[in-house]
């Protein structure tokens, strides 16, 4: 398992290639990438991501460990950035490896569902008109009940 919290951009292709090449016993690799989405008005200047150093790593490791206990997985990778990002920038990625695809897909969805509302990150949208914190959505909390 590898959990990385960093300010710098990550190389999606290099990370995915290295992850996929690590274990020839894995027949399925799923990757998910989260990207900063512009606002409907197209005026997002900056997405600022704050986090809780220490707890972030602890929470992500716990979520990844639970995924590994729940599904038949090989390795798990989680990379999440913080700091100031622009529309189109990659915020985060998860990758799961499994002998079969069902485990890899489900584990990746589980990681994303928990990461959205149980990992201590907060997003602030900054436009020319002002700045505002992104509110958590009820549907993100509700998504956890399916697991």
């Amino acid at each position, binding site marked *: 398992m590898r959990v990385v919290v960093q300010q710098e951009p990550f190389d999606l292709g290099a990370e995915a290639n290295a992850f996929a090449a690590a274990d020839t016993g894995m027949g399925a690799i799923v990757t998910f990438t*989260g990207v900063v989405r512009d606002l409907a008005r197209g005026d997002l200047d900056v997405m600022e991501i*704050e986090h*809780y150093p*220490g*707890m972030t790593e*602890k*929470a992500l490791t716990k979520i990844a460990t639970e995924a590994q206990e729940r599904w038949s997985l090989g390795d798990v990778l989680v990379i*999440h950035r913080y700091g100031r990002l622009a529309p189109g920038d990659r*915020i*985060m990625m998860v990758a799961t490896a499994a002998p079969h695809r069902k485990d890899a897909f489900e584990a990746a969805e589980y990681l*994303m569902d928990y*990461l*959205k*509302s*149980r*990992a*201590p*990150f*907060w*997003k*602030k949208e900054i436009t020319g008109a002002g700045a505002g*914190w*992104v*509110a*958590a959505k009820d549907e993100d*909390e509700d998504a956890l009940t399916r697991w």
Partner: protein
Amino acid sequence: MDVLYFAWVRERIGIPRERVETGAETVAQLVEELRAREPRYEAAFADLSALRVALDQDLADFDASLAGVREVAFFPPMTGG
């Protein structure tokens, strides 16, 4: 103990962390102590349903005990991913 604030809680209170000497036995008691201090704390803690708390970097409830706790953090619901 150290008390940390994140996101709009940090902005309303105006500082990211502080050292608090308290006899509070639960998170809820600590919140009441902080709220009584100044309007900026009252503004941050007015609606507990909009807040989450972590004790020593694990999510907890507002009725949780503070016994042995070194770090308390208050923040809004998380928006990762």
